[in-house]
Every structure is written in structure tokens, then in C-alpha cells.
């Protein structure tokens, strides 16, 4: 198979310096803004400068990402706290979170919706995806607004565009979406009911193997990450470019991104407190009941 197709459309791989000293790391990324700094670091050669040979592999579907991590095909993965519970099932903690990432979530409603506040969602049908970050976000938002999550009829629709279609066609009263799609929703005439702030950070980078055990490698990695964050924060056009080319997000989203993501956070220890809350949520929902100490799964950034 000498003429196998070449991935020449966009370079998701940092030009690998085949130096024996370089450390090879494969990261499973998701097509979401959370992954943007990783792509910047790869594209601009920040990883390479740190002596890291980082390969980014883009996933459109969390199940495929989890398949790849279970199969040992990735050393790190862009995850959210909710889906990370799956990684906590093995006997000893081989996967840990090494840094927070930056992401935003919100609830979209149709243009002429009579839903005025989160409270009004009571008894309504809401399109969401179960056991992903959006479901925790909804849970938290409802609780904060004094609504019992059980009183809202949440239907599972994994395809994000489909959730948006549903509110456009009045098949659901609201849709819980990640930020990129909130922008599209707005462009397409929907309204945003509520949106998460920078205090709500539940996406993170999970790692295992060398990136986890070798402190030196890890700090080099995070150094490159932080450089990329600076670059993004200083040059909004870089964000637009990465969004469109590397993460394959729609052009309007990419254009609006600098406004939606004015500041990316530097590498930061994921919050144990938030993790505890997520675990409580998981227990209530019944999808993760094992007793664990969240701190065992989080590596502080220093």
C-alpha cells in the first residue's frame, strides 16, 4: 500500500523531529475550542522547541476517542470531568488530569420561545446529551435556579447540530450546546437563555504514561501550552485560524471566537471541588457510583 492517501489538507502533526531524545506524545483532541491551544503549540513548533514530539489526533465523537485511549493509542486526551469518570473505573489511577482547559456552554432556545428564564424550563423538553459535560452543566444550572433536574424532560440527542435543529423545528423547548454552537444558534436566529462564565471550567487534559509520570516532560509540555495560550490571547486572528483550519469549526464560529473566548486560561490545576460536585452528580444519575478520592486523579500544576 505505497499510495495510501496523505493527510495533506491540514497538518495536525507537528513536523516530527526524529531525534532520539524527543519524547513522543499522542493526544486525542476533540473538535472544540478547548483543544485550540494544543494546536497552536503544535503549529508554531512550541512543543518541538521543548523537545517533545507531539502528535494530535482529532476526534469527532467521544466514543471513538475513548476507544483510542483504551486501546493505548493516545497518551493524553481532551476530556471533560463527566466523561472522565469512565477513566476512573480501572483499579489504580492510570489516567490523571494534568491541566484545566478552556470551554464554555449554554442553553439555546427558539426565537419566539416563551421561556424567559431557566425556571421556565420546568416540565419542558430539553435536548441534551447524557453523561457529557453539557448534562452536568444543565444539572448545575437548574440547581442554581432552584429547579429539580428531574422536573425537566431531557432527551438524549448526541449529535450537536441535531439538537439545534430540534429547537429550530420546535421539537424541543431548549438545547444545551457548547459555545461554538451557541454562536451558530444565534446566527440562525435562536436566543441564548444562559451561558457559562469563566468560573465554570470542567474540561481538562487527561494524561497517562510519560506525560504523567515524568515531571520534567510534563512541565515542558505545560510550558509550551502556556506559550500557546499567550499567543492566542495576544493574537485573536490566530484563534480564528486554528478554529477554522485545525478544529474544522464553521467559519462564523471561527470569526466570532475571539469575542467568545477573549482569554484562554493558562495551565491550571483542575478544581477538586468541581470534581467532587461532578462525582455527586454522577452518583445521583447512577452512572458512576464507585467511591474515589478526586485528589488521586488530579495532578497539581506547579
Amino acid at each position, binding site marked *: 500500500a505505497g499510495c495510501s492517501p496523505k493527510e495533506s489538507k491540514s497538518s495536525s502533526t507537528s513536523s516530527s523531529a526524529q531525534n532520539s531524545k524527543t519524547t513522543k506524545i499522542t493526544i486525542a483532541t476533540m473538535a472544540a475550542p478547548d483543544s485550540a491551544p494544543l494546536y497552536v503549540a503544535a503549529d508554531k513548533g512550541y512543543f518541538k522547541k521543548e523537545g517533545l514530539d507531539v502528535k494530535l489526533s482529532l476526534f469527532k465523537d*467521544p*466514543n471513538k476517542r*475513548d*476507544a483510542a485511549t*483504551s*486501546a*493505548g493509542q493516545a497518551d493524553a486526551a481532551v476530556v471533560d470531568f463527566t*466523561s472522565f*469518570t*469512565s*477513566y476512573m*473505573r*480501572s483499579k489504580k489511577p492510570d489516567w490523571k488530569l494534568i491541566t484545566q482547559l478552556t470551554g464554555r456552554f449554554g442553553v439555546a432556545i427558539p426565537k419566539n420561545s416563551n421561556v424567559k428564564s431557566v425556571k421556565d424550563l420546568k416540565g419542558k423538553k430539553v435536548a441534551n446529551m447524557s*453523561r457529557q459535560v453539557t448534562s452536568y452543566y444543565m444539572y448545575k444550572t437548574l440547581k442554581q435556579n432552584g429547579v429539580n433536574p428531574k422536573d425537566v424532560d431531557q*432527551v*438524549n*440527542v*448526541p*449529535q450537536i*447540530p*441535531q439538537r439545534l*435543529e*430540534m429547537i429550530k*423545528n420546535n*421539537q424541543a423547548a431548549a438545547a444545551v450546546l457548547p459555545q461554538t454552537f451557541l454562536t451558530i444558534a444565534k446566527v440562525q436566529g435562536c436566543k441564548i437563555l444562559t451561558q457559562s462564565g469563566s468560573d465554570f471550567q470542567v474540561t481538562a487534559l487527561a494524561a497517562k504514561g510519560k506525560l504523567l509520570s515524568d515531571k520534567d516532560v510534563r512541565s515542558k509540555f505545560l510550558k509550551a501550552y502556556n506559550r500557546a495560550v499567550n499567543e492566542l490571547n495576544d493574537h485573536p486572528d490566530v484563534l480564528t485560524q486554528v478554529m477554522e483550519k485545525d478544529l474544522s469549526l464553521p467559519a462564523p464560529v471561527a470569526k466570532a471566537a475571539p469575542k467568545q473566548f477573549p482569554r484562554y486560561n493558562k495551565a491550571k490545576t483542575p478544581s477538586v471541588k468541581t470534581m467532587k460536585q461532578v462525582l455527586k452528580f454522577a452518583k445521583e444519575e447512577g*452512572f*458512576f457510583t464507585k467511591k474515589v478520592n478526586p485528589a488521586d486523579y488530579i495532578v497539581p500544576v506547579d
Partner: protein
Amino acid sequence: MARRIRNLVIAIIILNIIWYLAAIAISKDILPNPFTVYAIIPSLFKENISLDIYASVYRVFWGLLSATLVGVIIGIMIVRLPKFGRIANPMLYFLYPIPKISLLPILMLFLGLGESSKIGMLFLANVFQVIVSVRDQVRQIPGDLYSSLHVLKASHWQIFKYVTWPASIAGTLSAVRIELSASFAILFMTEVYGTQVGLGYYIMDEWSKMEYTKMYAGIVILSIVAFILFIILELLDAHCNRWRKKDAPLF
């Protein structure tokens, strides 16, 4: 009968040995060994997996039945009504490769999120395959078999009843067999939205929880369910094709 059961047992033992060896060789969560998996199955029934089985079989049954009915009729028409066939054939070849999953938005628009859109998707995903299978099968019927009916000016319906149908039933059942298994794969696309019951949902759910042991338990149950359906199809086949001297053993 006794020999059949013996063969079945041998087959199951071989499968399990292969599985067991593979599990040992891989020795990772992603392939638990068969005994761990079997050990967990009783607990699934306590968790009411029978409901999932029922839901999936229900969906597959209606999806497949509708696809087979429509597929057989159109497949036969394409061959037996050449004027229709000449136009329908190229249309078929354009429509057939359209990835049905990408029509999900349209399907949901009309049928919502419930059972009907699931059955609709099963129908859409299978009907073209049945058409092509049946068409190919009916094309192979030697023209001579029709002669004695033509001379008696049999009606289209009589020709169908006495020749086309009996001659293509084996092929139709073969198509159904193939669709049956494809349908279970399609469940993995349709039971991921708007439902919390179904074997496809169960397996995908355990997968996304990375509960591989439970996932494989679900797969084992799916295999057994499908196996039973296959046996039913085989018996039907054996009955309809008594006139053929079969060399091939069922097992």
C-alpha cells in the same frame, strides 16, 4: 438433531477458546475473558435487560418487515417490468449509496425522536439493499421457467405466485439474513438518541462508560438473540426449499 446439538456445542467451545486465548494475549480491559463476561450476565437480567432485548427486537422486526415487503416488490418489478426497470435501475444506483445516517435530520423532522424514526431509519438503511439483492436474485431465474405460464397467458400475479416468488424465496431469505445482522449494527446509530432502552443503547452506553465487561455481556446477549432469529430464518428456508436437494448442512 443430536448431531446438530453436538456441532453447536463444538462451535461454542471453539469460539470460547479463541476468545479466551485472545483475552489472555491482549490482557487489557478492552477484551475481558469470557468467564468474567458470563459471570456478569445474570446481573444484567436483574437490571432488566429483557426490556432492552424486547425494544431492539421490536424495532428490528418492524424495520426489517417493512423494508423486506417494499424491497421485494420493487426488486421484482425492476426485473419483471423492464420499462420500469430501465428507469428504476439507475435511480437505484444513485440512491443506494447515499449514507442514510445523513438523512437523520430529515427523518427526525418528520418522525420525531421516538420509535417511528428508529424504525424509519432501519427501513431506509435496509430497503435498498433488499431491492438490490432481490433484483439480482430474480435476474438469475432462467427465462425458460416462465415459458409454460406465458403460453397459458397467466396473469402478472399468477406469474409472481407460481414462478418468481418460489424461485426467489431462497435469495430473499438470504437478503433478510444479511439485513438482520446489518440491522443490529444500525441500532447503534439509532438507539443513541431519544431512548434509554434497547440492546444498541445498552452496549453503546457501557462502551462510553468503558465498562467493557458489561459491554461484552451485552454483545453476547445480542449474539444469542440474533442466533435464535437466524435459526428461525433457516427453518423457514429449509421449509420453502424442500424441493432443492441441499448439500449444505445447517450445522
